[in-house]
């Protein structure tokens, strides 16, 4: 987990925290984001109950949730940054580091494993030149494992961006990513 926390010097952290506390943190989030978050807040009894939705909203606008965004959301929800960090890092689909334009979620759960997801992963990695957890140099794809996509009857499955690909074969991977340069790093 801790590798998700960017290490900054103590002095920097203290300064940035102080600054964040003083300067209007709301300025970090866009008007559209704040409106959407406020709509969620209006549906729940506690502001902090909108935490997951708020994180998803910001991620949908920016692709990922930076430290600054996280502090701004926490401020807006009247909760501490540590509490919100606990929620953000609990869910593996809230990204606390930058990801590519499309995230590839390759299922490695039991059905997909029986149906050979390990070979698929090798194929994807070979095509894109990235390992699990890495982003292609052109920033098009980030490859991540996922525990289940809820389509075991169509195993092996994988998601690319918002599209679910079922009964994936190495051939299908070749077709999908064939035009990608690959071998990047």
């Amino acid at each position, binding site marked *: *987990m*801790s590798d998700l926390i960017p290490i*900054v010097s103590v002095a920097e952290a203290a300064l940035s925290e102080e600054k964040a506390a003083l300067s209007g943190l709301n300025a970090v989030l866009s008007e559209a984001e704040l409106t959407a978050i406020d709509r969620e807040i209006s549906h729940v009894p506690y502001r902090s109950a909108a935490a997951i939705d708020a994180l998803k909203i910001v991620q949908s606008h920016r692709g990922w949730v930076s430290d600054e965004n*996280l502090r701004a959301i926490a401020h807006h929800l009247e909760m*501490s940054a540590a509490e919100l960090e*606990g929620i953000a*890092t609990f869910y593996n689909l809230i990204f606390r580091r930058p990801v590519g334009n499309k995230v590839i979620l390759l299922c490695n759960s039991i059905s997909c494993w029986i149906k050979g997801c390990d070979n698929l992963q090798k194929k994807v990695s070979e095509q894109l030149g990235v390992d699990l957890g890495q982003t292609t140099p052109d920033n098009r794809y980030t490859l991540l494992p996922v525990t289940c996509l809820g389509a075991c009857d169509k195993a092996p499955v994988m998601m690319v961006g918002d599209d679910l690909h079922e009964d994936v074969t190495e051939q299908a991977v070749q077709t999908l990513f064939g035009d990608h340069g690959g071998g990047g790093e």
Partner: protein
Amino acid sequence: MPVIQVDGQEYEVEAGKNLLEACLSLGLDLPYFCWHPAMGSIGACRQCAVVQYLNAEDERGRIVMGCMTPVTDGAIFSLSGDKARGFRQAIVESLMLNHPHDCPVCAEGGECHLQDMTVMVGHRDRHYRGRKNTHRNQYLGPLINHEMNRCITCYRCTRYYRDYAGGTDLAALASRDHVYFGRHSDGVLQSEFAGNLLEVCPTGVFTDKSLVHNYTRKWDLQSAPSVCVGCAMGCNTLPGERYGKIKRVHNRFNAEVNGYFLCDRGRFGAGFVHDERRLQYPGLRNNDGRYDAINHHEALQYMDRACAPGKVAGIGSPRASVEANFLLRTLVGEENFAPGFSDAEQPLVELVLRLQQDSRALVPDITTIESADAVLILGEDLTNTAPRIALALRQSVRNKAYEMAAELRLETWQDGAIRNLAQDQRSPLYIAAVADTPLDDVATNRISLAPDDIARLGNAIAANIAGQPNADLEQPLQEQVEMITTALAGAQRPLVLSGTGCGSTAVLAAAGQVADALCGNGVPAMLCLAVPEANSLGQALLTGCDAPGLAQLQQRAASGEFDTLVVLENDLYRRGSSAQIDQLLGAFQQVLVLDGLDNQTTSSATLALPAASFAESNGTLISLEGRAQHHYPVFQPHAERRPSWTWLLACMKEMQREEVRSLHHFDDITRACAATIPALAGITAAAPDHHFRNAGVRIPRQTHRYSGRTAMRADISVHEPRQPVDEESPLAFSMEGLNRDQPGALLPYVWAPGWNSNQSLHKFQAEVGGPLKGGTAGARLLQSGIGAGPGTFTAPAPFKAEPGRWQLVPRQRIFGSDELSALSPGLAELVQPGFIEICAADAQLLGVTEGDGLVVTKGITKGATEGVTTGVDNTLATLEARINDSMAVGCAGFSVGLAGVQNLRPLAPVSLRRAEGWQRRSPELIGSDRDAGPGGTHV
């Protein structure tokens, strides 16, 4: 009481407990991690698994968690059955998958609950051969070290830090086997009670940074029962010493004072004991103003010569023991002895004593504070003046949750369930203070008022409760009065708190009125009043309420009544402005000072005598609840340091004073004091005297595994000196003796076979979580709830904010507002520079932003815009401006005790202006970075 069967044996157990508590209370060893006696059960770690059988015929049984299973009559359990043992072994083995094999270099080693439990379940061989998870550690401040790899994810840390202590900056991050307990980013843990993580964590994730860098194992520490001198709370502590240094301070359980927890000022604030400013030898001032070290015979002879003519005045100390103060009072005579308060503080402390003696309300201990179901705090910022009370108040607001739980017949130990049930519903807690306080997050409401208005508010509440409402309050305030009255009058156990911290006698008196009015309605109300120092209340009890103050002594000295002044452990420059104290000391021909530390007062002395600290001497201290408690020397003082009572007794013996002829031991002084001062008659009951023996032997300060005694001084000499003999207490500087079944006041460390960690405490308790087997330490001196009532009280006139004029109000800080905490290296890093707090609107009119300088002057300027006083220099201080919109209108808060505030006095009217040429510590933020707050301007 239910009878349960455990492994074929029948036991009678207390109803309403869970099986784990019951087993531990019965002396049966059942391993656990996540459960904590002060925090209840959540059933997270699965370590206390046992087998429960449906009935006598059931041979298979099922595995249940001890901490989540209520004891019911006739229930049949097995702790030692193979199934339960195997399960518990598997749990430890799984926790060990990622736990490093670093015990030899881990600060927890030797007192690690995880080690104990691993041995207890019999898990020996690791089968896992894979890679262990590793984490990056965070910087958590100068006090606490973080080593996340050792974590076994029991969640005790966040449950303590967040749920119990109300901290918000430590959380459980990530999920599965990546779980990480830490902050959002590196930084100092913000809770005032963070240090308890060291004792709450069952292994070495959170360790004491100063101990880690100057390490000694628990079994090599010499320790003795002690009492914290950080504030007036009187928390029981266990300082551990080796090589003449206090290595660390642990909590010493006292069910009625501090329970399982200390504040960080107490835990990390003992560093002054080996500060380089400690005096080593008596110093006699020579002609060029420097000091010549002299030996103690010469020093005593000098004292004798100085005191013999009889024109001697004495200034005692609210941070010195009752005994030392009593001896000084005997030496100089009752009428020539000042208790050592500042002139502003003396009436406040005397009023606290009078209110507690006169009140019909009960003076509560910590358990009764935690039982309060409605709380009103008037004027006091308890988190910063008596922090342990604030932690107890955080538990008292949960009584609403327990009420809701009782309706659903949930046991009180069902922690997770009850927190889920109650969410943010709390018992009423109202705070009236000059500005925000750290307890605001659990308060129903906090009202910012000037001290006089707080007193008026209290007075109106008291009148309302008594059924004679007076309607002279402003409308918004009147609404608050109604709300608070309803909350307090509807409560079974209402509690009113105040203290000397806001500097106003009117506020204290108002608190007394409210508590008394509640008693008048037949409710057993409680009244808790905080005083500043470890023995403040003891000084009030010793001197009664008509002792001379500093100003009076100065006048009498100036008139030639005195030649000599003896100052006991008191830095007078903290008790008045420099000019006042210079004048006071200058009025005497010679000034003898007994103190541990080199400070401005010792530097003004003719003769300075090195006094032993609390950790090197016996002493009785009287806490804010009137509890006399005894602290024992942890180690022998070095060089020519002597306990103050030793210096004073020797001096009076040298003078052949009649009063001390029959005093030979420390206990003799205690007894003489009890016999002389009726109010202190009970202090002899605080602890057994030095004749006490436990089953015929002394109580050891060293554990039975204490090692290296012959080698410790080998770098100095290979000859091992004789162990010091303690003539003054029943404790021995030795590992020989019996540390078991002794009176509660004499517990030097906790250890039991198989239980090396602090969790062994339950072996010393009558029942797990309950009071010590040997009785609760200390003796209460105040007869609670028998007073006739505080009499009538006239509320002050409403506070009027005047243009260009502010009332100075004290803002207390847990680190630095007292005399000693800033001297500990770790805490010193957290002490802020002195500051002045004003609201944003005032700041705008004064033309300052956060971090600018403000000049504080006395007197009144004609208009703030002019900002110049005419005539003499009236400057009192130049301090950093802080903007705080919660400040009461017309008030300016000043940081008590921090650098630069020496000349500022609570409630003084002052003027403020922007300081020219002020060097900012941080970059300036532009105006639009801050929203202008609602704080009203009056300038």
